[in-house]
């Protein structure tokens, strides 16, 4: 269900986090869905189990998955586990990275914003509060 590549610019741990997060946010892996154990996913991907464990820890910290002892690892009901301050901090950090990467590419801000919006929509994140269903083409 997940593909990882070596030689990629992202560490394997990051690829696992991003891959699972995208599948959870799009609903491909719905709340209550049971994920493979650390060992099973590590075998499937042929990677060190510690790498998978670290990825699961990160997703747990983000409130996306939870481990029920002796039962397994499950996708959580959507809710916010991080404090407001922590969410804010992570948003700022991610934005800084993004803005830096994008700045040197020479695109107009309009284009960047539009592409960003599309990318967010693909993850099921839309302009909730302001947008009504008529606004979305």
């Amino acid at each position: 269900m997940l593909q990882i590549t070596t030689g990629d610019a992202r560490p394997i741990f990051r690829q696992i986090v991003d891959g699972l997060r995208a599948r959870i946010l799009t609903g491909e892996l719905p709340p209550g869905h049971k994920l493979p154990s650390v060992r099973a996913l590590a075998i499937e991907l042929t990677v060190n189990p510690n790498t998978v464990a670290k990825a699961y820890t990160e997703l747990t910290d983000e409130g996306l998955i939870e481990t029920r002892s002796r039962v397994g690892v499950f996708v959580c009901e959507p809710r916010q586990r991080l404090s407001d301050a922590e969410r804010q901090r992570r948003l700022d950090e991610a934005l800084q990275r993004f803005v830096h990467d994008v700045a040197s590419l020479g695109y107009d801000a309009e284009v960047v914003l539009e592409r960003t919006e599309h990318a967010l929509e693909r993850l099921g994140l839309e302009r909730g509060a302001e947008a009504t269903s008529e606004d979305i083409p």
Partner: protein
Amino acid sequence: MIGSKQSDDAPARLDQPAIEARGLSKRFGPKLALHGFDLEIERGGIHAVVGANGAGKSTFFRILLGFQTATAGTSRVLGYRSEALPPAVRGRIQLVTEEHALPGWMRIGALEAMHRDLATRSRSNGGREAAWSERAWREVAGLFRLPSSQRVRDLSRGERAGLNLALALAQRPELLILDEPTLGLDVVARQAFLEALLFAGEHDGSTILYCSHQMDEVERVADALIILEDGRVTEHGTPESFWRRIAGWSIDAASLPPAGALLPEALPGLLQTRAIDGRLQLTAIDRDDDFGACLESLGAVDVQRVPIGFDRAVNAYLDRPAA
């Protein structure tokens, strides 16, 4: 290596590092194969050892296992001095090299029985429970589909590698040294080898040293990364912490003097420069965005930071100009 018959006169010293080398040097005539070699490896985990041929890896292993004496410095393995290693302790160390040398005339079943017999009779594993893991043997032999009636000489290279690993893991070594074990194996055998290494048997705290030139394998299996260069350890940490220090940059190739003119004095931290398709790709260590500014001040045009993979990060580091 086969554990010899010993009573438990050499108890496991699990509270001590798996490997501890301090200030090792080894001189062969005018050449220093090791100098100022320091390395401490904690118990457990997979430690990847990476370095160019001739960096001193083989010399270090020979000294570590007591086959050779150091010119200066000290070395301990599993808590015991290398030059006075009790046979029982040597029996808890398994070494798997790329040759996969095994007696060709023996059948797999007989070889297995011999090793199991020696391991269980010796009871020399310093108080650790069973000296032979049936489970590890079954799982690895199963992954490589090793039929017990087959003679070793009729096995493919990949199967011999699998057999070697199965025998090594089944003896539940405290320390397992793998020296380029997947060299010359095809994709399927390499996959089976990594899977067996990562998942077969119960790893109950054994420490694994994995020497490889295959960065994709290192990226998959390593908890720690050790880089050897010119007879000493130059980097030791997690693969990610090393990788994070390396950054890639791309500039318009026409905007700077030829690659040879880019000197480390003008660009501290520069590791490697490569010309690709009208672009110059530069790799730098321990430099932030100021490196881009530095390039621009030298006249570079269209300066972009580019992401680089783990393999390229390590290769650029090994390729850097001598200090």
